């Protein structure tokens, strides 16, 4: 299981920059041509170009210019990486851990179950999952941390501050 948690996606920084540039270029073009028009209406009282769409148009135009520059610089870096590779020197890398997906699952679990099974149980399970994913092996230690924290946070937020934290199971 530990091997699975250590999984990570790797790419050169230049490739990451190219990907980032392409994504935001396409996104900006989509917003400029279709997105803003369909999602922002022109309200009463607009004068000339001063409408609800003005600011989003400015943002997306700047974003388009920037993403093209990032893309061009990424291509430039990629060429340099090839030269580095030929010279036998190391290439700057970027990595993304599998952890991001696991945490997304924990987040989805927390969001979907909090109202039904309640904050205390949901939080204990989510915290224990994080403890386990981080390599915690002692069951009692994981439970002590998650139950202890949940109890304190419930008392503080729900009882002291009056935040409505669901107990679950219709309670």
């Amino acid at each position, binding site marked *: 299981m*530990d091997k699975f*948690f*250590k999984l*990570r996606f790797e790419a050169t*920084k230049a490739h*990451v920059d190219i*990907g*980032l540039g392409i994504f935001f270029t396409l996104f900006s073009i989509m917003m400029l041509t279709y*997105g803003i028009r369909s*999602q*922002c*209406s022109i*309200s*009463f*009282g607009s*004068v*000339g170009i*001063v409408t*609800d769409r*003005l*600011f*989003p148009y400015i*943002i*997306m135009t*700047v*974003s388009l210019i*920037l993403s093209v*520059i*990032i893309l061009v*610089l990424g291509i*430039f870096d990629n060429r*340099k990486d090839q030269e580095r590779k030929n010279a036998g020197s190391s290439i*700057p890398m*970027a990595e*993304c*851990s599998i*952890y*991001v997906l696991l*945490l*997304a699952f*924990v*987040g*989805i679990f*927390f*969001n979907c179950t909090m109202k039904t099974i309640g904050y205390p149980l949901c939080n204990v399970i*989510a*915290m224990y999952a*994080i*403890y386990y994913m*981080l*390599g*915690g092996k002692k069951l009692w230690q*994981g439970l002590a*941390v*998650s139950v202890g924290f949940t109890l304190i*946070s419930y008392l503080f937020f729900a009882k002291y*501050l*009056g*935040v409505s*934290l669901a107990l679950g199971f219709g309670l």
Partner: protein
Amino acid sequence: MLSNILSGFQMNANLDCILMIAFGTLLGIVIGALPGLTATTGVSIFLPLTFYMEPVPALGFLGGIYCGGMYGGSITAILINTPGTPAGAATVLDGHPLAQKGEAYKALQMALYASVIGGLISCLALMFFAPILASAALKFSYAEYFALGVFGLSIVAGLSNGNIFKGLLACCIGLLIGCVGMDPISGFPRLTLGFTPFLGGFQLIPVLIGLFAMSELIKQCADKIKRTGEKDEVLAVSGKGLTKAEWKRCASPILKGSIIGTFIGAVPATGGGTAAFLSYGEARRASKHPEEFGNGSLEGVAASESANNGATGGTFIPMLCLGIPGDSVTAVMMGALIIQGLTPGPNLFVEHGDTVNGIYVALLIANIFMLAMGQIGLRWFYKVCLIPKEILQPIIFGLCCVGSYASNSSLFDVGCMFAFGILGYILLRCGVPMSPILLGLILGNITESNLRRGMLATGGNFFKFINRPICLIILAFTVFSLVFTISRMLKDKIKGKEINEEE
């Protein structure tokens, strides 16, 4: 000024307030001492605790975390050669060699005293300069506010660690996120995808916790898994205390460091890290023993620590007076002010003068608490970095979840927090910094409102709208700083210099 201080003391003269400042300072030192957790993360995580507080204890609590966090970073810098916070990086250069020589106690003492003196001097500067700047800024109209907003957004150059284009792109992401919801002028829904919860826009707290705390948590967890089995070597807190001669030798670097820290802190988007390295360089230049720097010089520790804590008060000056955060921590604290119903800017001094005075004094008290706590815990605080990450990270996770839920009792906010945490982590891996996103989110509304109001008043003529001297000066300065940063970055790239994009 004296009446301001007295009014500030009155605002802080209750047990709740004092206890919250003390608690915040203690938390800050602990967070700062934990490698990987910065003052920004600390303030983001504990921000939800302040929802139900009055503004002064709330800001005092967060100010305590900020000041304590800046000092706490030096503990691990000295004892385990890893700065607890980026601002403590300069302290490593001399602090750790001192600890290796068996003089860790002396280094920790110097770090504490220099931090406290730096913090106190910067608070006094804040009390003196902030009202002057605010009264000048009161004369500003739409055009100047728009120019200030653009200037604030352009300071991403300083927040984007090397690649300004990615910093500016992050800013655009923040601005776009800020556009979701009701239009600030017409009140019509905008970019909501027809999804009702988006009508209110993204709430600041979940976005903030997601970007700064959750993304950092994912990064820390990934690093922890990668480094399973590796352990940091913690040096013992050994040796004697400071002598009079050492005090005398370090007095000048402390004083200079405090002034440099305050000044650099007041320049938007610089912060404690830059101040610490500048002060360190100046102390080495002026020292009679420059050869000792890098090999365990107390002057080096004094210079860097006084400067990074000196920046704490300085960063509040542009934030309180102009509504432009001095660094990423003050960007988060600006969010805290907005949540309390206070809009940073010159009007804050007119409408909530007592609260502002209370914030000054709260920072002053936080520094005094830092001295007392630091003195008592000098030999013990390092133990917090021995807490296993598998215990610490689930607690941070729990705080992020309950904190983002508590703001509106809404699971949608928790979902937003997770979504922004994951987005933040992916963007961080792509070298896109987080602070400009927050800056865009906070300043977007102000900039757009003032731009559109101003342009409506001039019938849509932008040039008429900016035809005011102060506005033109601010815009010219913005263009100059952008052109300068871009040309420097491109020159470095052509020369083949590696750009460090890590936050």
